[in-house]
């Protein structure tokens, strides 16, 4: 069911007269859906009852048809007012009573019209432009003095998340995290989504807006634990289109290519290699000398692995640095506000997010994603998926499992022979 919705009031002797039943029937008959927000039933026969009904319809036109059809039966649109906005007092400072967003689809009422808030994400503010009738989610740090910021709750509504059409693991009405549930069918459902998205991605590549992207947020444990080959295959097979990570994921991936080690451990032998702890430093140093990861791939220094596949397949990569990074590699964004902005810019079109073995990047991405994007969080530490699932979206699925096992199973489900 689409975004068109309206709340109506019905009062009087609406229960015994079957007027409420009739109105609800009409809504359904015309292709709408409803939620009874509250129903107060008169305690005695001569006392009237009252119902507030939230009506949703696939389109604005259908909603208008429904409202027109139920109006003669006494349903009237609840009186609503526009949202209130105040100018931001200074750059980077919001008005004290600013409205703080959730990650759910949100609308504000401007000039009598409900309009969608663009780029909704968790814990930001809403900037409105009355003249253009637009509303945009805006992080605190990006606010400029004088921006009109929505305050209070009036004229703001959060739309309940629709149950996805697909009947898969994401359509359960709750966020699930368990180390004890079998993973196989969950992974099969994820693979199903990825297959469909790859089709959309390939279609859009021949022209059109790209809105079938899969995002992978990965930590270096992918390389340490042996998931590098599977992830490389997923990228080369065009199942993954956006990659978020840190300095370490890139460094250890290229270390593995150049030295066959990950943080000094031989990946095939599984033993510490003499002076192996230097390998990632030498890797970083070499790439710094070349100038960029892209050049390292183009010049044939890095020919295999996650980075090489990403560069060759035009995967949009955002590497966000952290305080303990060595180097860092060229291209790693060390200003966290800038990194956040780069991640935000890469999110439009993302329709599935896989957060694998990365705590900080996973949480940061979770906060940037609207609730409408199905999210899978995989970590050996149950606290990470739990933290993500606590965001309250029923489209967040948590898997407590090792990164490599997950990626390998997923890749096999999608046809990998490794």
């Amino acid at each position: 069911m689409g975004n068109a919705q309206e709340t109506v009031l019905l009062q009087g002797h609406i229960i015994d007269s079957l007027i409420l039943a009739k109105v609800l029937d009409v809504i359904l008959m015309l292709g709408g859906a409803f939620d009874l927000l509250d129903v107060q039933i008169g305690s005695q026969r001569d006392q009237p009852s009252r119902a507030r009904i939230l009506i949703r319809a696939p389109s604005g036109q259908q909603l208008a048809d429904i409202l027109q059809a139920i109006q003669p039966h006494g349903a009237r649109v609840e009186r609503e007012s526009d949202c209130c906005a105040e100018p931001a007092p200074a750059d980077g400072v919001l008005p004290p009573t600013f409205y703080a967003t959730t990650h759910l689809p949100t609308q504000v009422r401007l000039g009598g019209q409900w309009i969608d808030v663009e780029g909704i994400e968790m814990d930001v503010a809403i900037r409105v432009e009355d003249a253009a009738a637009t509303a945009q989610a805006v992080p605190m740090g990006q606010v400029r003095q004088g921006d009109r910021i929505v305050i209070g709750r009036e004229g703001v509504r959060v739309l309940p998340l629709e149950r996805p059409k697909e009947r898969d693991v994401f359509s359960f009405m709750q966020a699930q995290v368990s180390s004890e549930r079998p993973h196989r069918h969950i992974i099969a459902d994820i693979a199903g989504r990825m297959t469909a998205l790859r089709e959309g991605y390939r279609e859009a590549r021949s022209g059109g807006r790209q809105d079938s992207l899969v995002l992978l947020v990965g930590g270096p444990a992918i390389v340490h634990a042996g998931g590098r080959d599977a992830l490389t295959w997923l990228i080369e097979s065009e199942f993954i289109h956006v990659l978020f990570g840190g300095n370490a994921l890139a460094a250890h991936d290229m270390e593995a290519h150049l030295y066959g080690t990950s943080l000094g451990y031989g990946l095939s032998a599984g033993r510490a290699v003499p002076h192996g702890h230097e390998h990632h430093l030498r890797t970083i140093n070499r790439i710094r000398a070349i100038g960029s990861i892209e050049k390292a791939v183009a010049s044939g220094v890095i020919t295999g692995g996650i980075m090489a596949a990403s560069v060759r397949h035009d995967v949009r990569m955002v590497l966000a640095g952290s305080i303990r990074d060595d180097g860092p590699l060229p291209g790693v964004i060390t200003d966290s506000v800038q990194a956040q902005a780069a991640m935000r810019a890469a999110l439009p079109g993302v329709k599935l997010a896989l957060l694998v073995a990365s705590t900080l990047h996973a949480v940061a991405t979770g906060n940037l994603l609207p609730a409408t994007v199905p999210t899978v969080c995989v970590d050996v530490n149950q606290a990470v998926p739990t933290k993500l699932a606590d965001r309250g979206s029923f489209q967040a699925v948590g898997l407590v499992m090792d990164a490599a096992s997950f990626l390998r199973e997923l890749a096999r489900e999608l046809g990998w022979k490794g």
Partner: protein
Amino acid sequence: MSRFLVCPPDHFSIDYEINPWMRLSNRVQPDRARLQWQGLMEVLADKVGATLERMAPVPGLPDMVFTANAGSVLGRKAVPSRFRHPERRREEPFFEQWFRDHGYDVATLEEGLYFEGAGDLLGFPEAWFGGYRQRSDIRSYASLSELFGREIIPVELVDRRFYHLDTCFCPLSGGELLYYPPAFDLYARKVIADRVGQDLCVAVPESEALRFACNAVCVGKQVVLPEGCVETMAWLAARGYEPCPVPLDEFMKAGGSAKCLTLALD
């Protein structure tokens, strides 16, 4: 003793068409109309023993004769009508003034809500029914229910020929209901059967419904109804009622009969 508000048909004619019965070409014969109206008054006064309150007719307001649409009355409380059609809206101040002049507590409905008085609001002592969709606005019943302290069950009228509730729904003093079910939607039919009791609901045949058999005035055991409703009269007689048929076909030209020509005051 029953009291009715009535208005002589001095200016009754077909000057406009606001229901499927009205045809400008179908002219009223004024003398005949006057005789029929007087016949009705005689039956009400002499046979039924009712008191008749006559209000002064107003030139240019041909439908004022249908006082059932003056408003709704309970005890000393009156709510004047707000007509849907502008043609009849001009009657409103005269009816309202009559209520005020006769000591009624007059309450008015919110601006913009249509309500056509006892034409659409009638019922049994414990439950009232309010016809909506054609003339009265369903939302007026929420306010009226509060004003009168009565439960009002809205019922949807779906046949344009039965444009007021009193054209197809007639509660009788013994708790029975004369009605024409196809004039109502399915929800209303179910509710009426549930509330009145299926065994007390009597459907009049279509031919008699179209003669406005249901547009009858019931006082005690006497039921004043338009003539020619043979089956309805037989049923009434079998139930112990005394049917009092009155020729009223001049008024049927405007889509009204016995009940439309009266407003019960107490």
